[in-house]
């Protein structure tokens, strides 16, 4: 049941709490809940504001074009360059949620497990030359109980598919009602001998633990759920953490540095409060869950005489092996209205192309789902085929006719980990707080783009087989916009080649832990949130255990 509301704990920055957690998203919320329910005092620092359901809106312009609730390019600019040989230019490439709840608060709800094969792909395939593809220090079997825990504690709707990895419990909720796009994907997939299945979504299909079922308003993608039907850290984990009376969620707190004492142990963090005053939160241990871009930036900004390359960076791999996942979309128009603007983004998907198949001649795999991915403005700007009118009576007629009749086949694919794809500090640019901004260097590996085109080809075939009247896609090009920020503090057993160990403890600083998208060793097949959530449940349990045994 929903936790009883109790006054949340309040700590002074000078109090030495057991844990300070930086970030309140998918990982931060779960770890806050795990540590506080295990009896520890916790302060969660979140750079964004705290919003209630009453403050959420369906403001496409504000969100997509004015930076509402996301990292703000005006105050937190960052720079981008495709390769290390180039000078980075100021450009908004990375997008993440900037509010209590993090990116997880506005995510679409896709909740995929990885498969056993994801964890040891490098050794099975014999590696991919010129890349940093390595095995995870974990197996699927070790993570499985935490996938299950994530599904049951958060609340996931779905049903088993033909390629699912082994699971110890069924889904807690049945799938959400199929949409027209899902029916059409099924039709196309079956005609081609593929195996469509219901999409697994962290969205309630019925009342679950006191939260209501989805009301099908249609604003999941990059919007927060007014009904708390989306199973997020914000809706589920943070309330439990606060109800312990041992956890304070401190919003508008922008962390500048992790502080380290003379003994090489973390002593807490410094942060700017809402009035831009520097504060120092002391803690016995620090957990970074700030996402795959902010976590490495924070470590690099925490360089000191003792840690000249940045904190926890004796390996030199902090910030490296950044992975975005590829996303490629094939659009299709049908004769009758689908009304894709209603309900959740996607209800059916195909995972037949999940595994890497050496016969294809490139590394990678992924999934294809049925979705809309557009709101009114984005539809008017880019929802019609390229040969459609762009103004005039024809434009008006086509918008009216096609808005209800259009869907997309979304192709979610792998990204290879490359040492040159990275988050570093920009040498000159500072943010509004005077901190060094992040600089992103990124070029998709050629295999990533081949895989995107390969998935796109199958999506095109499915659209035709489903009876689409028109099918089109933009060319596959290198990605310059990312919402999945993965791999930049990779997990591993070897302190020379990884940042955290298999329990998310940094190799270099005994009481500094990292768990978020940065921990991921490989990119998943384009839907990393359930893996980040499972890692967080596992990390939270182990960190609490270490604390109990005096091993921090």
């Amino acid at each position, binding site marked *: 049941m929903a936790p009883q509301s109790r006054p949340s704990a309040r700590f002074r920055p000078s109090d030495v709490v057991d844990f300070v957690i930086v970030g309140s998203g998918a990982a931060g919320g779960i770890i806050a809940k795990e540590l506080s329910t295990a009896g520890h005092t916790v302060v969660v620092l979140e750079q964004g504001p705290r919003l209630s359901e009453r403050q959420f809106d369906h403001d496409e312009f504000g969100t997509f074009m004015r930076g509402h609730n996301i990292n703000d390019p005006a105050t937190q600019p960052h720079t981008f360059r495709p390769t290390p040989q180039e000078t980075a230019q100021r450009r908004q490439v990375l997008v993440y949620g900037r509010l209590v709840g993090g990116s997880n608060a506005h995510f679409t709800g896709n909740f995929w497990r990885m498969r056993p094969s994801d964890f040891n792909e490098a050794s099975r395939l014999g590696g991919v030359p010129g890349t940093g593809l390595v095995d995870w220090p974990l197996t699927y079997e070790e993570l499985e109980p935490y996938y299950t825990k994530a599904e049951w504690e958060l609340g996931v709707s779905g049903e088993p598919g033909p390629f699912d990895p082994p699971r110890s419990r069924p889904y807690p909720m049945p799938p959400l009602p199929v949409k027209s796009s899902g029916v059409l994907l099924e039709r196309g997939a079956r005609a081609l001998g593929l195996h469509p299945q219901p999409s697994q979504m962290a969205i309630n299909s019925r009342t679950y633990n006191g939260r209501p079922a989805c009301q099908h308003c249609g604003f999941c993608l990059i919007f927060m759920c007014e009904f708390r039907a989306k199973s997020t850290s914000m809706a589920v984990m943070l309330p439990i953490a606060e109800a312990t009376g041992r956890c304070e969620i401190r919003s508008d707190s922008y962390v500048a540095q992790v502080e380290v004492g003379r003994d090489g142990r973390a002593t807490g963090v410094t942060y700017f409060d809402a009035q831009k005053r520097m504060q120092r939160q002391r803690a016995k241990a620090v957990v970074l869950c700030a996402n795959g871009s902010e976590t490495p930036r924070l470590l690099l900004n925490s360089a000191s005489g003792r840690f000249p390359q940045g904190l926890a960076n004796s390996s030199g791999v902090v910030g490296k092996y950044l992975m975005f996942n590829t996303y490629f979309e094939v659009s299709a128009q049908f004769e009758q209205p689908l009304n*894709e603007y209603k309900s959740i983004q996607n209800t059916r998907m195909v995972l037949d192309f999940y595994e890497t198949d050496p016969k294809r001649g490139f590394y990678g795999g992924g999934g294809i789902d049925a979705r809309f991915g557009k709101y009114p403005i984005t539809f008017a700007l880019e929802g019609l085929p390229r040969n459609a009118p762009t103004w005039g009576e024809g434009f*008006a007629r086509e918008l009216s006719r096609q808005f209800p009749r259009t869907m997309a086949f979304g192709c979610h694919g792998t990204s290879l980990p490359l040492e040159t794809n990275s988050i570093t500090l920009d040498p000159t640019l500072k943010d509004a707080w005077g901190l060094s901004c992040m600089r992103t260097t990124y070029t998709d590996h050629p295999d990533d783009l081949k895989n995107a085109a390969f998935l796109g080809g199958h999506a095109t075939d499915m659209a035709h087989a489903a009876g689409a009247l028109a099918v089109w896609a933009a060319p596959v090009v290198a990605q310059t916009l990312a919402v999945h920020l993965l791999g930049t503090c990779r997990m591993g057993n070897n302190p020379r080649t990884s940042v955290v160990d298999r329990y998310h403890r940094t190799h270099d600083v005994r009481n500094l832990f990292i768990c978020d998208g940065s921990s991921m060793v490989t990119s998943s097949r384009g839907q990393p949130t359930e893996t980040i959530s499972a890692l967080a449940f596992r990390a939270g349990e182990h960190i609490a255990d270490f604390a109990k045994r005096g091993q921090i």
Partner: protein
Amino acid sequence: MAAGAVWAAADLFEIEEALAFASQQTSANLTAQTRALTPAQADVVSALTSRILPAVDGRPGAREAGALAFIDRALATFNAAQRPLYTEGIADLNRRAQAKVTGAAGFAALASGQQDEVIREIEATPFFQAVRLDTIVGTFALPSWGGNRDYMGWHLLGLEHQMTFQAPFGYYDADANRRN
């Protein structure tokens, strides 16, 4: 908990209503008096919006949805940097209109077919691209931004703005959802 959801929804509708009301007030004022554009400039922009996204087949277009109110408010505030682009683009349109029809008062005074001919001459310019983008945003952004009066823009897309829907959602899922 269902009651909680209903409460949340009721509350949202109140917020939406308040926003819509505020926007109507603003729109009404803006039609009478623009802040960034002169009345003559506003006539040109209004005519442009109605050619970019005209009212067709009995549905409202950008002019009816009040895209002009959004554009003017944006130029007066967060989009002020584009005022010179608008000023010069509007003057250019008027010159072209006068070159096309001797004695014409300006672009706004042309017949719609003549307006389209002039637009075809400037389709590729940054000015036209800016007005096109702003017309789309002014038609489809939430009414609280100044346009999309009474959600007219969403109506023209066939989008009903409701917080709650029930399956079936469209034509192709009707059978599947009836079976369940």
